[in-house]
């Protein structure tokens, strides 16, 4: 059975589809957050070294992973929009940017709150935290560029190019920061992976899935607003029941 994907790449079709899909991601996200945190707080045992403070990683690690992946996905969508001129992909890219930036922010904040009790400093120039900070800068640049260009088509193309250049740079930045970090023998946040209790892994994984679902749900509902803004002059938007009432 062949599904006509191009049909769904038309903003008018996708608008309805996204609306129907959103709750299917939002509610499982809420449930999985609850389950993941329940395991994290009530099942996972207290860590011998870090005591209760380690429980921060159940949100810190998923947020870090999400912020990195969302940047790549965003750049991928932006590139698709640039190459194939599919408006929807560009809209998806701009819908994901704020979510990615917020995950980067959560990751930095929780990293700081974890660092303080562990190393006695709010901020350590750890390779991962530093990369995360630079990633946040990249997100902010993308959002700022898009916000300052009035013509949406130019905004899409320009920010797509920036995202592509950025994602080529991300690994270079990551490895140079890591190299810089080892040179300066800074402290590194290490979670001895093998000794992690099964419940810890389960909790982290569940929260990670919940974060993914959350990001998809928020991205879908944001892209709906973007479609409405961009397609304001079209007939199908004018005929939507929520617009007509």
């Amino acid at each position, binding site marked *: 059975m062949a599904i006509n994907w191009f049909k769904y790449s038309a903003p008018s079709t996708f608008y309805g589809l996204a609306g129907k899909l959103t709750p299917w991601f939002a509610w499982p996200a809420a449930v999985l957050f609850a389950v993941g945190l329940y395991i994290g707080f009530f099942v996972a045992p207290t860590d011998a070294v870090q005591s209760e403070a380690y429980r921060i990683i159940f949100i810190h690690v998923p947020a870090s992973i999400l912020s990195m992946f969302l940047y790549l996905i965003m750049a991928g969508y932006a590139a698709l929009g640039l190459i194939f001129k599919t408006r929807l992909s560009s809209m998806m890219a701009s819908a994901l940017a704020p979510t990615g930036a917020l995950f980067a922010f959560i990751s930095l904040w929780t990293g700081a709150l974890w660092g303080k009790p562990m190393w006695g400093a709010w901020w350590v120039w750890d390779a991962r935290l530093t990369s995360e900070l630079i990633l946040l800068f990249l997100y902010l640049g993308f959002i700022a560029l898009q916000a300052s260009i*009035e*013509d*949406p088509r130019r905004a899409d193309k320009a920010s797509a190019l920036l995202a592509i250049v950025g994602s080529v740079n991300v690994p270079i930045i990551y490895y140079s920061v890591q190299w810089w970090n080892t040179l300066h023998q800074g402290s590194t946040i290490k979670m001895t992976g093998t000794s992690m209790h099964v419940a810890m892994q389960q909790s982290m994984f569940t929260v990670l899935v919940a974060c993914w679902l959350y990001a998809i749900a928020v991205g879908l509902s944001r892209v709906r607003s973007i479609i409405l803004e*961009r397609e*304001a*002059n079209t007939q199908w938007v004018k005929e939507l029941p929520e617009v007509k009432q």
Partner: protein
Amino acid sequence: MQVSPKLEVIDLACERGDHRLFSGLGFTLSGGELMQVQGENGKGKTTLLRALCGFVQPVAGAVHWCGRNVEEWDEDFHAQTCYLGHLNAIKDELSALENLLLTAGLADVQLGEKAALDALRRMGLRRKEHLPVRVLSQGQRRRVALSRLLVVDAALWILDEPLTALDVGAVDLMQELIGEHLSNGGMTIFTTHQPLHVAGIQTRELMLS
């Protein structure tokens, strides 16, 4: 083999922002023809000319040059066009002569100083050739910009308001230049708010509304 140049616009549509400027626009322009694009402000005259140059991506339709889409022509098409927009594309810090020599260089035209001086003098800039453009009047600057038409060997002239800031003498000169260009088998598409008549040529009119 010398093919007579031909510009074809096929079912062209352009937008500015979300606003559709024109659609379904089509015409053919051959060697020796002169076309004036007319329409009120904001109807897309400049956009049409910029679309012909390839600055603006049309939403639909295509522009063909000698039977081939200009997107395939790329740089060879540019070698056969000369575009003059609202902006003069001249540098205030440089003299008229330096400006013209640099323009020719970028347009890949071998131009000696003698030929450049001749072109400037023909445009009525005698004794102004070595002055920095900064000290010239608006009309004189426009003349410096227009002198590009004399040195670049292009079949298609795309002129956006070429007569801006020109005095009566210069307008006559422009009409003469366009006349020569057309009789050499060239073609011109232009916009203007002033009357422009070339002796012995019927100006075709394209109305955007």
